[in-house]
């Protein structure tokens, strides 16, 4: 029988690797759309609102939704592909539901974009289009919740014998925590979509519903939920790249767990809940697990040999960017002292800075994953040129745009807009950088796919001297990964690093 083409596998199958790749590429594509919207906003700032006019709010708010939801999809794709491989499972839990989640997400994002084009989206004036945007937003949230259910169930029930939760690789551990909290957090946002559709069904009401009911998802502490899987990616990438094992495995799991707990944010949905001691504690304490994780990564780097790969700077910066978001939370907390407007900072911009920092964390994390696990994702390592270009441009663009939002929130106080055109110029430069980075990443992916196709019969694909080899199970599987290619002779799981050389594990891994 003729083997299925990749397109046939995507349209008619439910293989977790195919769905994961599609999720990643489509997620990066939607993120690129959001960056183009940011670019337009920057141009509009330079032209003193002469480009977007009355549509500024629509484009700005809609980009604030499309970017993170696109990146959540991309992270879901990383988890779709990597989690079953790390557990040596031939499939994700409920593969048809996983496929349904992907297609619903894709359709929901597309319909949302259409609603924006017809002056709906979020903040548009056309009621029918705004309702369409609200429904598509709900469908997207529900789809991502369903994807999270599949991922979380896979980690809990598909582990091989000997792999207790304490031995789960970090991507899978973070995927379990992240997807569990995605289910709760996205569900809480979905409830407001329901409220909007039933009781605020005019365009202005839906815009207000977003600001009062959904925008909390894009500020601390809830926004950090979106970045939880990136922490697992960071630890596994650093561990494999430096050739070392994380020495305090349980502590590292605990640090990611602490980050997850401090990112629980569905209790802080209203503006009133922000001006409280608990919110301030959450906003400040999130920096502690991030610093702890940086310490563990630094320890691994110190003990191992650092090899310069495009993924390494991406994961290190992804964790550092979370600290930037924590700084925005710190400044917001300071501003809240007294009557809540002590320093007059623009808290709307500080909130936007937080989601921009976390978005930069997510995109750098996704790119690190698809570069590091390129043999599993695409069948061959990525070419260094485009991958390095993507890495550096994305870091520069993401870092600049996030920091700019933060500075803008501090400078443009008490509702005034000094130096708005200067900020606009920098926004344009940062967004261009960001966009080029994502395009370079897609080019690197395309190059890896082409290389894999041209070397389809070449066994050296998996033994390339420049490729990084990790000590977790996904590195023992044939590449490119496919659900039906799980060999029977996998090693016994008696440590978190089953592929590590004997004697190496007891020495370096302790709980």
């Amino acid at each position, binding site marked *: 029988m003729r083997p299925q083409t990749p397109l046939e596998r995507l349209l008619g199958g439910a293989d977790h690797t195919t769905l994961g790749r599609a999720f990643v590429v489509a997620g990066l594509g939607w993120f690129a759309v959001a960056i183009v919207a940011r670019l337009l906003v920057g141009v509009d700032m330079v032209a003193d609102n002469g480009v977007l006019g009355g549509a500024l709010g629509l484009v700005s708010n809609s980009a604030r939704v499309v970017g993170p939801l696109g990146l959540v999809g991309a992270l879901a794709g990383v988890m779709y592909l990597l989690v079953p491989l790390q557990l040596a499972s031939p499939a994700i*839990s*409920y593969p048809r539901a996983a496929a349904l989640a992907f297609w619903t997400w894709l359709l929901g994002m597309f319909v949302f974009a259409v609603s924006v084009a017809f002056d709906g989206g979020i903040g548009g004036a056309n009621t029918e289009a705004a309702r369409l945007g609200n429904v598509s937003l709900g469908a997207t949230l529900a789809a991502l*919740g*369903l994807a*999270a*259910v*599949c991922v*979380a*169930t896979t980690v*809990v*029930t*598909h582990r091989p014998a000997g792999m207790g939760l304490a031995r789960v690789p970090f991507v899978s551990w973070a995927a379990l925590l992240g997807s*569990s909290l995605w*289910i*709760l957090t*996205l*569900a*809480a946002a*979905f*409830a*407001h979509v*329901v*409220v909007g559709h*039933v*009781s*605020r069904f005019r365009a202005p009401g839906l815009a207000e519903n977003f600001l009062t*009911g959904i925008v909390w998802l894009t500020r601390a502490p809830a926004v950090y939920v979106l970045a939880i899987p990136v922490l697992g990616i960071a630890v596994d990438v650093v561990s494999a790249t430096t050739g070392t094992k994380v020495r305090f495995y349980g502590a590292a799991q605990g640090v990611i767990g602490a980050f997850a707990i401090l990112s629980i944010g*569905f209790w802080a*949905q*209203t503006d009133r809940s922000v001006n409280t001691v608990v919110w301030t504690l959450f906003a400040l304490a999130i920096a502690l697990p991030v610093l702890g994780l940086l310490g563990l990564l630094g320890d691994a780097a110190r003990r191992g040999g650092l090899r310069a790969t495009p993924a390494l700077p991406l994961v290190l910066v992804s964790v550092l960017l979370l600290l930037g978001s924590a700084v925005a939370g710190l400044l917001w907390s300071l501003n809240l002292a007294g009557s809540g407007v002590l320093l007059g900072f623009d808290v709307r911009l500080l909130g936007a800075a937080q989601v921009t920092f976390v978005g930069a964390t997510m995109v750098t994390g996704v790119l690190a994953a698809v570069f590091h696990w390129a043999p599993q994702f695409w069948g061959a390592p990525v070419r260094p040129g485009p991958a390095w270009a993507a890495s550096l441009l994305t870091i520069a663009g993401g870092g600049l745009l996030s920091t700019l939002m933060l500075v803008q929130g501090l400078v443009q106080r008490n509702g005034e807009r000094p130096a708005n055109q200067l900020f606009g110029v920098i926004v344009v430069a940062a967004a261009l950088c960001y966009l080029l980075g994502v395009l370079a990443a897609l080019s690197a992916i395309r190059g890896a796919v082409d290389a894999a196709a041209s070397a389809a019969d070449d066994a050296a694909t998996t033994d390339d001297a420049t490729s990084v080899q990790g000590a977790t199970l996904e590195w023992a599987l044939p590449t490119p990964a496919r659900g039906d290619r799980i060999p029977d002779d996998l090693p016994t799981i008696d440590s978190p690093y089953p592929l590590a050389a004997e004697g190496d594990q007891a020495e370096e891994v302790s709980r």
Partner: protein
Amino acid sequence: MTELATLDLDEIEPAPPLRRRELLFATAFATAGVVMVFVTLLGAYLAARNAAGDLWLEGSRIPLTQANMQMATMVMAAVTMQWAVYSISRDDRLHAYLALGVTLLLGLAFVNQTTFLVKQANVVLAEPGGGLFYSLVGFHTAMVVVGLAYLVLMSFRTLAGQFSSRQPDGISAPAVYWYACVATYAALWIVYVMK
């Protein structure tokens, strides 16, 4: 002789083993999400009610007899659901079928009672609180309807012999969801009482 008759049964690959607890965990995760939607709707309702004061649903009257009967129905449905779980885990199939049937009947009765209550309450969508009232009640009713569909599906699979004491998840999993429906109705009942 047909081609089918010449098949060697030893050559047929056995079905992959069922992963125990997979359905249970998936249902638990999904239930957590659904409950979260309900809790958020309830929070929005209470916050808006607190802000509106005496204007809240002032033109409506929610009869409590109906709401109380619904509470009793759901409590009975929880008991019969647990009866089904207990029976299937002891391979008592007859009682499992009976318990599932009674649970389905009580669930349908609950949905019927809800439609009656909504007609009696006569809440207007446009009045303050009307939208949130319908969001809350409508979402819970949708929850119960989904639970009934889930129960019907699993009841058919039980009839086909797919679940037993070795693999009771097909009954335990909808039971988890069903208990969530009952628990959330308890919160909704308080809303009916307090209006």
